[in-house]
């Protein structure tokens, strides 16, 4: 039963992906600027014949509907085409940059949850106290500040003024690290490489905090309001009437219920973290998918942009599905 429902959801994703594919295909081509012109502009003097050759190679000489057909046909075979600018299959490029993006997203999420869940819980328990007010003002700040601004301020303070943390990249030049998963922190732990561990951690702190702060703010608010809701329920009175100490009433009986709505938000935010980090990756020179797609947009690298957008769509849909599956685990009432 459960399996069938999950399958149904996966099948439902197909028309959505198709729609996204068509939209991004036309959006790219509606954007002013021609990929070949941009490439040639960089290369300097080139002959007409060379330009025609390039167009031919990229299939840009074919009518639009043929181009669309070729793109969709490729998608069916999980072939996202070849990047104009890098001359490599888009799939390869995504695989290459994905670990960096995932690592950053994981750390951002970890930072967000470690801060947000306790803050939300304490705010609710101490509703209207100064802790609550302070935390909610902080989260309002976190939601409303654009994260590139936060990133720049963080760089100014921790890198420029205090000279504590690096501002660019994932690892310092000259630090050796064996690549196993591509998640540098993980790899350095597995290989017992202390130098690399410290170095990669130093690199990831600022981008992760900048990226995670908005999520922390949102999750803290959701957690607080669902805790407030839960604390009013009869089963909380029962837990107290059983003689449970207050900390157990909160951490066991209330938090597990309050997590249910929070999980949805966290899951969707995970999609945002994986897909919405172009600015942070650009600011911190983080070699992930986000920075790659920004460059691809400037170069009008159609296949690369299309491929990454398809990948983002895939991540969003998967994140949603995973949220729903986790939901059935924590909330026994829901059977998907």
């Amino acid at each position, binding site marked *: 039963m459960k399996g069938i429902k999950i399958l149904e959801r996966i099948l439902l994703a197909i028309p959505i992906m198709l729609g996204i594919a068509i939209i991004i295909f036309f959006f790219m081509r509606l954007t002013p600027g021609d990929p070949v012109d941009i490439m040639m502009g960089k290369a300097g003097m080139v002959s007409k014949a060379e330009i025609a050759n390039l167009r031919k190679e990229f299939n840009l000489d074919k009518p639009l509907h043929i181009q669309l057909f070729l793109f969709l046909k490729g998608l069916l075979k999980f072939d996202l085409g070849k990047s104009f600018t890098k001359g490599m299959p888009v799939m390869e490029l995504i695989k290459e940059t994905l670990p960096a993006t995932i690592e950053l997203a994981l750390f951002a999420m970890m930072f967000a949850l470690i801060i947000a869940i306790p803050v939300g819980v304490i705010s609710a328990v101490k509703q209207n106290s100064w802790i609550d007010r302070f935390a909610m003002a902080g989260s309002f700040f976190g939601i409303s500040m654009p994260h590139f601004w936060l990133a720049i301020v963080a760089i100014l303070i921790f890198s420029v003024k205090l000279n504590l943390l690096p501002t660019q990249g994932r690892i310092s030049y000259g630090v050796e690290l064996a690549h196993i998963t591509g998640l540098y922190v993980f790899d350095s732990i597995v290989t017992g490489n202390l130098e690399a561990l410290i170095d990669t951690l130093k690199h990831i702190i600022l981008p992760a905090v900048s990226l995670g702060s908005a999520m922390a703010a949102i999750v803290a608010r959701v957690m607080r309001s669902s805790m407030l809701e839960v604390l*009013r*329920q*009869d*089963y909380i*009175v*029962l*837990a*107290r*009437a*059983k*003689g*449970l*100490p207050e900390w*157990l009433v909160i951490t066991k*009986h209330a938090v*597990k*219920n309050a997590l*249910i709505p929070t999980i949805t938000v966290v899951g969707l935010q995970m999609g945002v973290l994986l897909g919405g980090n172009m600015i942070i990756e650009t600011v911190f020179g983080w070699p992930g998918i986000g920075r790659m797609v920004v460059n691809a947009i400037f170069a009008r690298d159609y296949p690369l942009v299309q491929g990454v957008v398809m990948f983002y769509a895939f991540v969003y849909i998967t994140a949603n599905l995973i949220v729903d599956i986790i939901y059935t685990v*924590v*909330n*026994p*009432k829901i059977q998907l």
Partner: protein
Amino acid sequence: MLQIRNLTSVFPTDSGMIKAVNGVDFHLKQGQIVGLVGESGCGKSATMLSILRLLPHPGKIIQGEVLFEGEDLLKKPLSEMRKIRGRKISMIFQDPMTTLNPVFKVGEQIRESMVIHGFFKKDGWNGFDFFRRRRKRKEIDKVISLMEEVGIPSADLRYYDYPHQFSGGMQQRALIAIALACNPRVILADEPTTALDVTIQAQILDLLRRINEEHGTGIILVTHDLGVAAEFCHEIAVMYAGRIVERSKTDDIIEDPKHPYTQGLLKSIPRIVKHKQKLYVIPGSVPDLLQMPPGCAFAPRCVYAIKKCKEKNVPLTEIEEGRYVRCINYI
């Protein structure tokens, strides 16, 4: 065994103080069932919650004593209070559907009550626990036998169910099992059957009576149904707008109600009769707890009310041995 004296609890609200419990006096003797009867909103639940000091925010107790085994619960530190809740005095709630925690297995919720009060003694060395599994198995077996005792069929399977897989009646049985878990001295049963249909009601009440008889557990049975109270209770206290208006042995109240409100309640119990008979309804409505009349709270609805009733409030007075009435006509 449990004596409540002059208990007064309020809910401060924006529009004023709501005196939900207003100088309530009554007691529960060892092994008895006492009925607390009154209309919706008269403060029955607030009284029960005050006894365990579980009034929801912003409610608070401003006066009175709750004497249990000779000690005033209202003066105890909270840590002491926790050892009494669920261990010596437990509570059964009005709405079983919302009282069990939806995310934990029913059996685990019952087991938790026992564990929290150290009902399962760890024997000897307490360090690394080699026998954890076996001990847990024992605990589960004990919970299952308790579930059987309160009439949950195939308890060994039901242990692992979640609350939403239980019917309302079964949920209430599970809650009774939670209340019984540590074999308490007193059970506060707050309208345990209001949310259930009639046949289930009778079963649950029978179960409570059996518990009372077999374990000698004292029960305060809160109900809005005087008929139910008459059938099950040794004594009845009638509550109106936060006050006890009459209190005595069940037979006395049923055969010879003194307070006009009790008389009205008694007349309005529906009976199965052949002829069409209009149900008696007490005229008027419950007073707003924010604007209580200065005199007797029932005076505006009372057919015997005289001028003095609306001016002066009389205390609960013993008019005969063991009969207490709060009415000027008997003083």
